[in-house]
């Protein structure tokens, strides 16, 4: 993982908060930034896919990380 990766820890936060955090990060960081978000909300996996599809950002990886799900996203 490159040093410039933006980390968001959304563990313990319930829907729709993880997606709100993504949207806020999207506004703060330029295109090309790599974002890694950790969340354990049950809806997160489908939410993050839908978010990337709708907003045109690239879902690079989606994997289990401990009890949470880690999504790596390239902002477009």
């Amino acid at each position: 993982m490159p040093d410039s990766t933006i980390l968001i820890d959304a563990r313990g936060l319930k829907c729709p908060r993880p997606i709100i955090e993504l949207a806020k990060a999207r506004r703060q960081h330029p295109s090309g930034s790599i974002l890694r978000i950790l969340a354990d909300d049950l809806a997160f996996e489908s939410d993050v896919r839908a978010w990337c599809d709708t907003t045109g950002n690239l879902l690079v990886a989606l994997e289990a990380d401990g009890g949470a799900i880690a999504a790596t996203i390239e902002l477009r």
Partner: protein
Amino acid sequence: MNKEAGPARLAGELAALRERVARLEALQAETPSGSASGGTGSVSIVCFSGEWDRLFAAFTIANGALALGQDVHMFFTFWGATVLRKKSVWSGLHRSWLQNLMGLLLPANVSRVPLSKMHFGGLGKWMMGILMKQKGVEDLPSLMEHARDLGAKFYCCDTSLDLFG
């Protein structure tokens, strides 16, 4: 067959195609639904009710749409308008006693609004608050805050404000 004709024709076609792509790109850039944020369309919500659970649903939908890059407009009217109230010591001065009484009987701000069911004089809402905190669910004031941060437009009905202060 002329050796130059093939490449020249191809170059001509390529130039025409390039021009066409540029035109389409310009057209796409002008279309609001294809904006850089990826947003598609907009959502408008009318908040008529002043109850905590109903407003919670409205703000959850608003935040979801905002997160997906959509424009959100929320219109607060009648009981819904009371959640935008902010009490100040001066607010009573320019109103009639009836308006002041009305203001006194209504929730002072968003954290004071009741549940539509199982409120039980505040006991139900207190229990709900504890459960939400335990489960890490966002409360109503912070959902409002997020919606505002993400650029939701709030509109308040002036007539309702006149009635409720």
